[in-house]
């Protein structure tokens, strides 16, 4: 299977998904 980091668009999509996860973690800690 091709590494998704070989594709720039999938790299950006994964970065955006990680951003959503990060926001959820920050909100959970900040409660």
């Amino acid at each position: 299977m091709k590494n998704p980091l070989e594709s720039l668009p999938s790299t950006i999509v994964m970065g955006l998904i990680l951003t959503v996860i990060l926001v959820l973690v920050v909100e959970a800690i900040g409660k």
Partner: protein
Amino acid sequence: MDFDYNWFTFLVRWLHVLSGVMWIGLLWYFNFVQIPTMPKIPDEHKPGVTKHIAPQALFWFRWAAMSTLGWGILLALMNNYFSDSIIIGLGSGVAKHAAIGLGMWLGTIMWFNVWFVIWPNQKIALGLVEASADEKKKAGRTAMLFSRFNTMSSIPMLYAMVAAQNVY
């Protein structure tokens, strides 16, 4: 305007941002411009990039990463949130500490990748140190994948950094 403690904190933040723009700007240059364009460049012209542009870009890239980390640590210390941020706000329960802490960890992992994975492998891939053709190919792929990992990480890292100052 008073040249007080707050102003010097601002000065350090400005230096941190200046360094960070150079670091991430060059990271995005590699990923958005150089890596996708290299296969399209005729072989006889490739040394223009590999022997001249890339080594110069990598010099500013890795030292900008070092400068960003250094000013960032000083900034966190000056703002008195270094220890709370290192444990991503789990002790204080403050969202700002969680955000800046996650950003700091992402940035630190990226700095580590620059100095201990990307740069050593780029030296091999660009022929700055002796290596076989196979070793160069393998090193080039490793450097590219970690560079992509840093590009991916830069998106949440910058969100965390900017949100910590403006949202929380």
